[in-house]
């Protein structure tokens, strides 16, 4: 790719940038917002989001921090808000929902673009670059992709944002109960961000069966009395949770 020294801001870009900055201020957004990490070049702020309330809530929207690390195998999204000061030669495209400011990994070696957002594919440090509608680099942020050494299985119906880990599961045939579970990842006992793609299986589906796994939530239903193991595999790590099904 050959780049030419660019002339100064096109006349049309200045009012657009000013209008965008004004809209951000009106909406109460600025790079000082909680949950935003200032880019390495200081040209704006990066926002993190993902869809698991427990694994992502602490980093998403009004959360107080951008994650240092995401779990290998997880999915997440990062958006960018340009700094609302003049002087930057940013090209906007108002016909696009994100106004043409796109965040993408510098290399697909560690984070790639998937259908549901960014996917952490290898352990390492990944620079995520925001580019304007003309393809110029506006800023970038670095995130670590970490291989989990533990999966925390939790009750998906637990309302707490910090639910306890589920160590054992008890189900009752007579109550015909079912339970829902999700899992998030840890490394060295530190939580890893990102919606982890977890594969759920039962060691004995005749006792307890994983009926469905929708949006990362596994629904476990009892079939007969006995013991089994709920097996959660995600981020190259497996966690087993003993199941007891009573009459």
């Amino acid at each position: 790719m050959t780049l030419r020294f660019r002339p100064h801001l096109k006349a049309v870009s200045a009012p657009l940038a000013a209008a965008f900055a004004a809209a951000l201020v009106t909406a109460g957004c600025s790079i000082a917002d909680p949950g935003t990490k200032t880019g390495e070049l200081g040209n704006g702020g990066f926002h993190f989001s993902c869809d698991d309330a427990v694994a992502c809530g602490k980093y998403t929207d009004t959360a107080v921090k951008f994650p240092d690390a995401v779990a290998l195998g997880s999915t997440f999204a990062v958006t960018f808000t340009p700094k609302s000061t003049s002087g930057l030669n940013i090209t906007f495209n108002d016909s696009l929902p994100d106004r043409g400011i796109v965040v993408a990994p510098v290399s697909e070696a560690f984070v790639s673009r998937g259908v549901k957002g960014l996917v952490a594919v290898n352990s390492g440090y990944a620079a995520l670059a925001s580019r304007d509608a003309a393809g110029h680099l506006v800023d970038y942020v670095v995130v670590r992709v970490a291989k989990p050494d533990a999966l925390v299985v939790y009750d998906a119906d637990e309302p707490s944002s910090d639910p306890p880990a589920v160590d054992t599961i008890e189900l009752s045939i007579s109550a015909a109960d079912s339970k829902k579970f999700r899992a998030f990842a840890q490394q060295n006992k530190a939580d890893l961000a990102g919606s982890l793609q977890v594969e759920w299986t039962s060691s004995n589906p005749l006792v307890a069966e994983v009926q469905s796994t929708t949006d990362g939530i596994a629904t476990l239903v009892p079939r007969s009395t006995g013991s089994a193991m709920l097996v959660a595999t995600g981020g190259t790590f497996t966690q087993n949770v003993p199941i007891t099904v009573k009459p």
Partner: protein
Amino acid sequence: MKRLATLAAIAACALSLAGCGADYDHTDITNVKGSTPFPGTMNYARIVVPVGMVVTAHIVSLDDDHKTMATTISSKDTRVLEVAGVVSPDDYAFLGLAPGTTDVEITADGKVVLIVTAVVTNQPALP
């Protein structure tokens, strides 16, 4: 005396034909920045960027009148290293796409003035 005047006229003519305006003088590479934990480097001979990371620099070519020249910077192998313009003037980013070696060519007013070897390195393996 007549011969001397003729020689002077020829010399003046030659200088005029050679376009003795401002010529390329030098390129300044300043404000080189990477990011932790693998910052990378850039100087006049070499760029080192870990794969997946970014190195930025302020690069300006100047003529012998100390005026800025139109500069282009390009990577010879865009599978290894991408060169991207930054939204701030005269700033460029070097993006490590895949491990390998290539050349980065800097031109001033359309002429190649500097070729820098670029190395994209592997990141150390993480636990």
